[in-house]
């Protein structure tokens, strides 16, 4: 009795091992023979389709567990996301008034229209998909793993997308831009290249979002250095890297000259706490020696090196976001970041808000220290 059951067990194990081996050999033979058809034109069987989609949805749901969703209800976030959607996503996913490209439609699987597909997902799941992409679908990952703030901007936009018609979308993503092609302005505004102005504005118009830096009147040296850093992937950004990468060195110089020559349009500033501005002023002009923070204005004044940005009048939201990125340990190969990152890491959360409020509140910084 005992012996029989043991030998039966042994036979079963042998059978399973043999079957597994046969399946493996069969798979190799199938791949080797080339009989399996990888054509995107052929599509999947319905059952395969169902199974793949089932697996994908569950994978996203599981991996998105535990992601904390920040406040997404902000125009600054959704306009920034919209402008990036236009250059980064619309080609495959389409947009209101902008049909999905027939080329993209011929992918397998064909990219979904997000005004219908996005509401099926939770915020954290959309974030996970935009950040990580999806294997075997053609959905790419975000260009850098370090800029969750940018990914959230896209999620914030996707939440608004279903309610947008063509006109509202154009307004949000393109900011009602209309510019006659000429020199640097042409490159900056031409959809064929990348449209810097969608976010950064142009002659008469400021930025589309307070999370986007005002480039009007910045030194050419700073603008060039930033574009070079983005183009060579030294400074991480899923929005700026692809755009700067598309520009030739000459065009980068054209764009830099264009923005350097602009004066920032007068825009109403968000209300700021005067106490915070005053604390920011003390920090910016005197530093905080005990915390090893040097005075900001020693590098960020009107007569500093061209490679340093001028901060007077810059958006507080942009500055605070950038300082927080450094503080949270952004790793960057940029040589200007090498100077600023350790300083930003010495700032505490309140100092970041204060100093951003201060710089955005001033109109002009004279050279040297203000006391």
């Amino acid at each position: 009795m005992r012996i029989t059951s043991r030998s039966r067990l042994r036979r079963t194990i042998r059978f399973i091992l043999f079957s597994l081996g046969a399946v493996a050999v069969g798979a190799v033979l199938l791949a080797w023979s080339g009989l399996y058809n990888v054509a995107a034109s052929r599509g999947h069987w319905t059952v395969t389709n169902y199974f793949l989609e089932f697996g994908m949805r569950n994978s996203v749901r599981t991996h998105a567990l535990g992601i904390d969703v920040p406040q997404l209800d902000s125009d600054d976030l959704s306009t920034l996301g919209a402008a990036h959607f236009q250059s980064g996503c619309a080609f495959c996913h389409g947009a209101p008034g902008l049909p999905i490209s027939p080329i993209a439609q011929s992918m397998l699987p064909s990219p979904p229209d997000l005004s219908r597909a996005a509401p099926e997902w939770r915020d954290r799941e959309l974030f996970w998909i935009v950040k990580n992409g999806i294997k075997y679908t053609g959905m790419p990952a975000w260009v850098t793993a370090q800029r969750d703030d940018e990914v959230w901007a896209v999620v914030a936009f996707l939440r608004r997308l279903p309610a947008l018609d063509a006109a509202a979308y154009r307004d949000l993503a393109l900011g009602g831009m209309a510019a006659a092609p000429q020199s640097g302005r042409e490159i900056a505004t031409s959809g064929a290249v990348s449209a810097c102005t969608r976010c950064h504005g142009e002659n008469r118009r400021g930025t589309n979002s307070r999370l986007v830096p005002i480039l009007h009147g910045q030194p050419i040296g700073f603008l060039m250095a930033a574009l070079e850093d983005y183009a060579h992937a030294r400074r991480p950004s899923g929005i700026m890297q692809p755009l700067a990468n598309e520009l030739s060195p000459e065009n980068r110089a054209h764009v830099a000259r264009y923005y350097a020559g602009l004066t920032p349009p007068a825009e109403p500033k968000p209300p700021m706490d005067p106490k915070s501005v005053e604390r920011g002023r003390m920090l910016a002009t005197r530093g905080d020696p005990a915390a090893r923070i040097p005075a900001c204005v020693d590098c960020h004044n009107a007569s500093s090196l061209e490679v340093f940005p001028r901060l007077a009048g810059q958006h507080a939201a942009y500055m605070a976001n950038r300082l927080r990125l450094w503080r949270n340990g952004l790793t960057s190969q940029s040589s200007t970041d090498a100077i600023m990152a350790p300083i930003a890491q010495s700032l505490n959360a309140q100092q970041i808000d204060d100093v951003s409020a201060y710089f955005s509140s001033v109109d002009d910084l004279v050279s040297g220290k203000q006391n």
Partner: protein
Amino acid sequence: MMRAQSCGGILAASLLLGGCGRDVQSAMAPKGIQAGQIAELAWLLFGFGTFVLAIVIAAMCLAIGGSSRTRWMLAQENTVIALGIAFPAVTLTLLLCYAVWLMRSDLDMARDRNAIGIEVVGEQWWWRVTYSGPDGTQIASANEIRIPAGMPVAFKLKAADVIHSFWVPSLGGKVDMIPGRTTHLRLIAERPGIYRGQCAEYCGGPHALMAIEVMAVPASDYAAWLERAAAPAATPKSEIGLRGQSVFLASGCGACHVVRGTAAAGTLGPDLTHIGARRSVGIDTMPLSRENLLRFITDGQHVKPGNLMPEFRILQPHERDALATYLLSLKVTEQDG
């Protein structure tokens, strides 16, 4: 044969003294009164320790191979009391008294009133040095200390961040620098010369590169040097020097560094008013030269990993050139180098 023997002797000696290196930094080669006392005491203790060791070995040999009478004597309670309790108690007391007597002058803090006062603050990872001028003015400097030979110098030692320890072995003992406290050290360098010291308490990353040079100059030269050191930096005479100065200010160097006489007034990092007169760059990491200065400014994290100065790789070649010329021109006078 003689030759081989002397070669062997030199080899053995160099192996033994390998750790000492240049005798500008050796407690075994004292160049100051305090270091001399320490060395004297060290030799005495070493000699006495050898003597005690000889007694112990002799007693052990007798206990193993001595006659039965000797072994009987060794086993007596009185022997144990005499050699194990009375002998150490007496000799150690004598040694302690001698050491206190030898070092008595260092315990007398009142004598510091006549001494030249220099404040040294240990920072991660450099030394903030402040001299007191004859009229009581504070003269800031960094990373090198100049003292008059043959005169007592009273160091006030402080720490800005973590515990450091100030130790110039050729001149004296080590004294900790403790945040929130002031410790004192009195040194006299017998002769003019350069004596190297080091932070002797692990203080983080580049601790090993936190060295210092103490330069003892003839007492007659010291007052004149101090007067020159108190002077602000001269305005550069050359055109390239002037450009270097504007690069220095426009790059924000003044946010952390002081150059007296200019707008640069940051106190986070070492005072650079007379950096051109220093012997080294990066706190004795490399000898001062145009090339090394630029290496420290643009590639400092390789030269001295972990140091708190960001790398200024942003500087263009012509800016680097002008900056180096300017910094090297920052010295008290020509003869001061």
